[in-house]
């Protein structure tokens, strides 16, 4: 019958498996260096989950999610940088008390728009609000004019390029190509120690689940079904009496909010933020995480981010120059062979066989949304 429950039994198992993996298996199996790496991978999962909603459900392909990830990350980094730049720490500068890169660029006072980032609540608010406002402006400009599909993807990519150039060009205000580095403490708590990194890993995991539950709620709401309807028959949705642009703006902003949270967690766990995480290449990589995981599945998106990043680290440790070819090949393979990604492989190939092995009749053939195999 119509499943209106928040989580079907199958989805509940999928969520539980992922929770076990993130909160039990990884912390037990990995040393603190590797765990921190996996924490970093999981920050990309925030973006991938947003893309699963925007692109997978709604058909809005954004090649500029790095912008929102970066904006969230920079908002966090600005707060941490100000905290690290006490007059005592920066006493050798010609202007003590401002971030080091500003001093190097002959700035003698903190720019006005940096001032709010002295406050943690304001900075945390900005982590979500800045990406959302930016996404809202892009969304209103594009969707009310009915720009969509490939054109939208190209424009978002242009935004990724523009933001990178802007950050690099405005060295004195942004730290330029080096980004914002040498971040030390969060309200006096040293974030560089192993214990702090482990704590942040768990905070990250909890936030990721909060985002997953929010995404699941949207998917299960009528809005989730409308997104699918819009993807297939945009005109019909209009003639069913919906203002399609508003729905696209909403989901695009939601994806941006998720990405912003991921970016902030990246800054906290990795200890810096730089324009290399904002531009075109990382933005496209984020789409690949989502595609590999299965763009229709929010859990698949998490596995995609984990798997691709793990492969990236593993391969680039041994064959640094071959990794990009590997990534390209992976993307082509997914598109050609497994259009629904890992989640599709799981729900179409592995799960039926598993159930057959267990002697159960195949369960309901609902939308692919299971945990892919390890």
């Amino acid at each position, binding site marked *: *019958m*119509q499943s*209106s429950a928040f989580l079907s039994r199958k989805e509940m198992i999928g969520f539980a498996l992922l929770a076990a993996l993130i909160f039990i298996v990884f912390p037990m199996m990995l040393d603190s260096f590797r765990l921190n790496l996996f924490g970093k991978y999981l920050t990309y999962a925030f973006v991938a989950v947003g893309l699963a909603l925007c692109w997978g459900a709604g058909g809005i392909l954004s090649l500029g999610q790095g912008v929102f990830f970066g904006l969230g990350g920079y908002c966090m980094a600005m707060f941490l940088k100000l905290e690290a730049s006490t007059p005592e720490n920066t006493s050798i500068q010609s202007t003590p008390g401002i971030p080091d890169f500003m001093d190097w660029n002959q700035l003698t006072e903190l720019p006005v728009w940096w001032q709010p980032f002295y406050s943690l609540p304001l900075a945390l608010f900005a982590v979500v609000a800045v990406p959302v406002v930016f996404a809202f402006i892009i969304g209103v400009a594009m969707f009310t004019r009915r720009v969509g599909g490939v054109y939208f993807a190209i424009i978002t990519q242009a935004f990724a390029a523009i933001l990178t150039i802007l950050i690099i060009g405005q060295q004195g205000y942004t730290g330029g190509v080096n980004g914002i580095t040498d971040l030390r403490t969060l309200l006096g708590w040293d974030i560089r120690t192993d214990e702090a990194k482990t704590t942040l890993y768990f905070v990250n995991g909890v936030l990721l689940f909060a985002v997953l539950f929010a995404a699941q*709620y*949207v998917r299960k*709401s*009528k*809005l989730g*079904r*409308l997104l*699918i*309807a819009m*993807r*297939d*028959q945009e*005109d*019909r*949705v*209009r*003639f*069913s*009496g*919906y*203002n*399609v642009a*508003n*729905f696209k703006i*909403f989901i695009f902003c939601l994806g941006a909010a998720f990405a912003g949270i991921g970016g902030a967690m990246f800054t906290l766990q990795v200890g810096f933020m730089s324009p290399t995480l904002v531009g075109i290449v990382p933005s496209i990589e984020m789409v690949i995480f989502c595609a590999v995981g299965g763009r229709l599945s929010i859990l698949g998106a998490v596995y995609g981010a984990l798997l691709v990043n793990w492969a990236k680290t593993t391969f680039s440790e041994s064959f640094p120059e071959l990794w990009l070819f590997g990534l390209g090949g992976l993307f082509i393979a997914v598109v050609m062979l497994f259009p629904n990604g890992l989640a599709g492989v799981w729900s179409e190939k592995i799960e039926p066989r598993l159930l057959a092995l267990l002697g159960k009749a195949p369960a309901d053939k609902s939308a692919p949304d299971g945990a892919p195999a390890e």
Partner: protein
Amino acid sequence: MQERFILKVEDLTVSFDGFKAVDALSFYVEPNECRVIIGPNGAGKTTVLDLICGRTKATAGSVKFHDQELLTMREDQIVNAGVGRKFQTPSVYEDLTVFENLELSYPKGHSVFGALVFKRDTDVRARIKEIAETIFLADQLDEKAAFLSHGQKQWLEIGMLLIQDPELLMLDEPVAGMSVAERKKTAELLNRIIQDRSVIVIEHDMGFVADIATRVTVLHQGKTLSEGSMERVQNDPKVVEVYLGH
């Protein structure tokens, strides 16, 4: 006091790169009237519906629905004002079930926030069930629309309009591409649903037209060639020459 006309189309013109697909067209639809638009291919029939429902922007003229000017409104605003439209090719949401297709057309929760908090309460379920029975799809509620036959998709789309309960219903070739049996069932269905509302239908099947039409408008090259009862139109020599003759 009821108004004389529910829809007033006056001097409606649309020009595509100089070609006037609809040329200074005027017609009026009364409450509860079933108006059938016929005409040869390229006469501008579908374009007229597109203009009324906001899919195509008019070059000049006016379309008034209850004294509301439709030409300046967005598609969704026109729908919410009470104008429903069925397309020529069945356009349903293939990835969603029949139930979900109907649910999305239910006239509630059409804002972003409304859609987020929309609940499938008993009213919604009852109404969807009722409509599904009307359109012969009560047993297919959980089936994905992609698996329906062509005729069933047409019915589903009619159902999606019915659940909106529009005051003015516009149907573009509702029986095209159907088998004889489906056609008969559809005619029966349409006869039932055109009660208590105004309907504009584009149709080629003359038997079907004679069956449902209150009045007929014959379009030719974007202009009205003839208008009146079926009998009158059928005996109009101009109509016989350009349309019925062959």
